[in-house]
């Protein structure tokens, strides 16, 4: 009896084994999971490709080829009629490139009377030699008549050739460096007179039409001014506004209006802030174009919502017990906020501020509209002088055709990214270090 019933039971259990498609469902599960992993890999792959292409194009910008030449500060070239005692402008106007050329001719062992040969030297040294030698003489006129070793920048094309970036298999007429110049270059290289040095000019020079003497000096100072202005304006105003909204504001129409405004401003396209700056600060209030001050104001308005949102989150995260304790001990509401809540919220506020500043540092579009796309060769002494900014400098170099400018542009991007990464990592570290779980 029992055997039979067992048998039927087994059969009953086995029979309705429907095909519920478990295999297909698990396959779908696996596929879905792979899609997800794929999506993340796509994002990360693009990040990697972008960083790799930029770094591979740009790292050479940090090295610059120079030629060490024994320059003879020949009185006959600098001051042929010996008038410098009465007319100092002679020293400014003198034919300094000639000095460099003479030194190069002597170094390469070219016959000084072989004019066609000397003409081939054109474009070997940078035009910046004029300014460099002039500054040496202007600083110390007693060098005239003496000989001294000077590191002179090679021209941009020679610099590229020296770094091996010019394809020498192309026929001579179609490339920018002649075979003769290459031969000279190799000779100087063998002598040790021509070598790559760390490119300090990239950080110090202003705008220039020649790649080898153009740098980001003006842009770094301009960006620095702007960041200071943003910090000085956006941080206090943002914190004050957040304190009002989070701690004091009653829930009413007016407060709602402010909240909607802030949330919306955080999502307004940045270029609109540029239009605001152009119409209000420059056109209506008559502030100077291209000035870091106006740029700072525009970026402040743009950064404010970011800082306010972060600050409000930080204030809201401080637990009510702290508030009650302070009020219970007899503090006024203002004392409670400024002496207890604000110090506890400070790490969060700082993190938000740094992230806002990093955004402002990388912002380009509004600055284009207020005239920061400018050829500025001299350092801005005050925030009201014409200046450029780091990303704007990158944009301007992107519009240049020469290869050497592309190299500088990539180098500038590396510098900008290093700044931004340093700021972001500081923010992350601050958050990890000081974040409190209540």
């Amino acid at each position: 009896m029992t055997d039979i019933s067992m048998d039927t039971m087994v059969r009953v259990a086995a029979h309705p084994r429907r095909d519920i498609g478990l295999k297909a469902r698990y396959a779908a599960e696996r596929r879905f999971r792979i899609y997800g992993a794929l999506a993340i890999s796509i994002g990360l792959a693009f990040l990697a490709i972008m960083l790799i292409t930029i770094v591979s194009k740009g790292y050479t910008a940090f090295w610059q080829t120079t030629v060490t030449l024994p320059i003879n500060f020949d009185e006959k070239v600098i001051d042929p009629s010996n008038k410098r005692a009465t007319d100092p402008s002679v020293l400014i106007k003198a034919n300094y490139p000639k000095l460099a050329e003479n030194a190069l001719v002597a170094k390469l062992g070219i016959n000084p009377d072989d004019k066609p040969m000397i003409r081939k030297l054109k474009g070997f040294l940078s035009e910046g030699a004029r300014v460099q030698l002039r500054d040496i003489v202007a600083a110390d006129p007693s060098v005239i008549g003496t000989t001294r070793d000077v590191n002179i920048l090679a021209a941009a094309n020679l610099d590229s050739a020296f770094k091996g970036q010019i394809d020498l298999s192309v026929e001579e007429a179609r490339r920018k460096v002649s075979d003769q110049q290459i031969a000279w270059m190799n000779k100087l290289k063998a002598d040790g007179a021509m070598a790559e040095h760390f490119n300090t000019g990239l950080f110090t020079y202003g705008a220039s039409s020649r790649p080898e003497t153009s740098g980001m000096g003006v842009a770094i100072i301009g960006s620095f001014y702007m960041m200071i202005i943003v910090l000085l304006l956006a941080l206090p105003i943002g914190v004050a506004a957040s304190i009002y909204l989070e701690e004091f504001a009653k829930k009413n129409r007016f407060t709602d209006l402010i909240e909607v405004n802030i949330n919306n401003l955080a999502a307004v396209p940045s270029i609109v802030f540029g239009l605001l700056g152009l119409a209000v600060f420059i056109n209506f209030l008559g502030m100077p174009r291209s000035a870091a001050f106006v740029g700072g104001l525009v970026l402040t308005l743009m950064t404010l919502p970011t800082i306010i949102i972060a600050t409000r989150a930080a204030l809201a995260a401080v637990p009510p017990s702290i508030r009650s304790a302070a009020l219970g001990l007899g503090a006024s509401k203002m004392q409670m906020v400024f002496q207890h809540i604000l110090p506890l919220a400070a790490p969060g506020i700082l993190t938000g501020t740094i992230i806002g500043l990093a955004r402002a540092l990388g912002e380009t579009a509004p600055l284009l509209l207020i005239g920061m796309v400018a050829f500025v060769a001299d350092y801005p002494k005050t925030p009201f002088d014409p200046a450029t900014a780091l990303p704007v400098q990158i944009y301007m170099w992107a519009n240049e055709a020469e290869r050497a400018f592309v190299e500088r542009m990539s180098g500038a991007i590396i510098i900008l990214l290093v700044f931004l990464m340093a700021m972001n990592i500081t923010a992350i570290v601050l958050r990890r270090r000081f974040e409190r779980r209540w």
Partner: protein
Amino acid sequence: MSSLLVLAIVVAIGVVAFFVGRQRAAAHDNGAVKPHSRAHYHGWWAFLLAVLPAILLLAVWTIGSSFYLDRHIHAALPERTADSKVASEALDVSLVKSLAKGLRQLDANTTLPTTFAELQPMLAAKGVALASDTQDYMIPIAVEANAVQSRLGLFGAVITLALSIAGAFYALRQIAPRARARNNVEKLMLWGLLAASTIAILTTVGIVLSMLFQTISFFESVSPMSFFFGTVWDPRFAAAGSGGSQGQFGLIPLLAGTLYIALVALLVAVPVGLMSAVYMAEYASPKVRSVVKPALELLAGIPTIVYGIFAVVTLGPFLRDLSAALTGGSPFIQGQSIFTAGLVMGIMLIPVVSSLSDDIITAVPRAMRDGSLGLGATRSETIKRVILPAALPGIVGAILLTASRAIGETMIVVLAAGVAANLTVNPFEAMTTITVKIVNQLTGDLEFNSPQTLVAFALGLTLFALTLVMNIVALYIVRKYREQYE
């Protein structure tokens, strides 16, 4: 006396008042009466009373006197006749003002020549460059204007300082053990906080008003119909003396390009971003999460100019050469194209989509997930049939926010999309966008009253209105959604 110097003196008075006030308040505290406020509050109150009204007065006075000076110069200028050498009255006034500014650089006791031709080298020696159409008759007016200005400035400085000192004394006299200095200071602080929070409103008002005024004056020379519905964008250059508008300012090609590129970008960013968010929220181990999340944040922190340069220097040429190799000759993808710009913009937006959707997905209550898994659904079924439908409103909001970012994005399209205003459906050709044209019309030398410049503000207002609507709808949806599960 310059306003900056006056300001410095006022602050100095305030600092003195602070210390005196604190000292006096501390002296009152002899234990007989319990003081209401601590000593430094009395100091701060004295500082505020000494500084704030004086600075307000100084600001009003400076603005008022500059208006007065304008009117004064205006009245002094000779009547305009048909043969006036200067183009407009406004230019007249501004020439006199810059002349007056230049004259201030000269030594006080220089005898001034009567003609501008003689004056110019004297000013040039001081490093002052002036417009060459400055007229002889402006010199006495400028001298007079300088005299008026220095009188006004001196008077303003005197009353400002007087007010500051009066304020300080008033506050110092009020000091008494039961005086409510803290309440006064805190009331003022509250007003300060309120003022700071209204800056957001002022910014929005500033944006709308500034663009509205310029747009209205643009519509005086170009009809709104031909702007909003025109299909040709050809603004021409603003040639001097060409008068009115000959260019055509049709919005349609720009709007089409903007939306097309945004669409391509969303087609890249939404699936990839959403899938990565799902993976991060549902599958990734904590270890993977801790590496990938900062990396994606890094992607979000890269400035858009870098993406733009990547598009134009690396990706654009690569796609062009690739397409040339595929057809064995002419490339069908242009160096600057909708596809390139949209693709790179899509990459930029991946972290935006993924971080917004990550928040939304993790906000779906645990119980819904557990319920579905408990009924035997696989993880992917739970995601597809339970979590995503529940999160849908929030995701729609996130996509709207992303779309508004895509529409307003500037640097990528400036570099990678091209400047020709085409109307095309081929994604491999170049099209241009609203933001590109705003930048084009406003970089370089500006003449502020030409329609070629003003059109940028009309474009900006259109862009602002477009993104505003999207943002408000998106924020509304996201907020509603959040409330649903909280």
